[in-house]
């Protein structure tokens, strides 16, 4: 039987407990929001609906309560909220933004979110992306899109210490990303190349 209700690219995936913890986050709603940050009306309308000011600075995010705004580009943000509220919030934005050159679309089903948690999370991601995630800029709230394991992906550093990183991939790649992370985050595959490490006795 066909199932018209999308249940997330990783519905039912059991968290992986390896060198780090990997789990699927499938209770987030997502809204693609575009507009001109220099337009005062756009800024005011979005703030009224979301309760937060959109981050104008590149690669930053703003969070308050249940709502987070992630910077995607100079005129684009990804708004995340509880999944049950996604459609409502998108409608609220569309109403408030009527007549303002902008776009707000509920894209809750477009992406899957995988959470990496624990010391070494950045190292696991660095196996799949030529990025120095240990650089100081990758601190709390930092957002960047990147190529990860040949995918178009995005990371959000929820917390740098302890390490909690959300990886966003398009949903059709969710299983691939999941399997990739499962294979590279086993206890045996821990690198500890960059963290404080003691040399293991052989």
């Amino acid at each position, binding site marked *: 039987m066909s199932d018209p209700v999308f249940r997330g690219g990783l519905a039912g995936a059991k968290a992986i407990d390896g060198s780090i913890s990997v789990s699927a986050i499938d209770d987030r709603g997502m809204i693609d929001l575009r507009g001109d940050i220099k337009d005062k009306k756009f800024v005011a309308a979005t703030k009224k609906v979301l309760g937060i000011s959109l981050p104008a600075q590149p690669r930053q995010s703003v969070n308050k309560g249940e709502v987070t705004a992630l910077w995607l580009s100079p005129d684009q943000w990804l708004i995340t909220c509880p999944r049950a509220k996604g459609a409502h919030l998108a409608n609220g934005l569309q109403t408030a933004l009527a007549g303002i050159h902008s776009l707000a679309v509920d894209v809750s089903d477009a992406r899957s979110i995988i959470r990496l948690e624990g010391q070494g999370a950045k190292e696991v991601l660095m196996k799949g992306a030529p990025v120095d995630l240990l650089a100081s800029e990758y601190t709390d709230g930092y957002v960047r*899109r*990147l190529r990860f394991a040949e995918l*178009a992906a995005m990371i959000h550093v929820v917390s740098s210490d302890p390490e909690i990183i959300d990886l966003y991939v398009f949903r059709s790649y969710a299983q691939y990303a999941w399997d990739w992370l499962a294979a590279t985050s086993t206890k045996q595959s821990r690198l500890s190349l960059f963290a404080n490490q003691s040399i293991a006795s052989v």
Partner: protein
Amino acid sequence: MRINCPYCGPRPNEEFNVLGDATKTRPDADKATAQDWLDYVYERDNPKGRLEEYWHHASGCRNWLVVKRNTVTHEVYSVVAARDYKKTHPEGVKK
């Protein structure tokens, strides 16, 4: 080769798609001849040295950039968002 995106910072070139020559100006649709279109769409120089190109930060901010670089040394001289480049070069990009 690394490209210093004005929005994202220095990024590896795998994150970008190249479109090519940024010095071509779209012909006037009412006046252009077939030769003008041929030149605009297909004809490209293959310079050894300085080159001005459009690059798209596809795996980043998805903005179009104008990158001035050297095809021999891979040195990148400057990177400007295409929208800003147009503002500072209203007459169009030099041939």
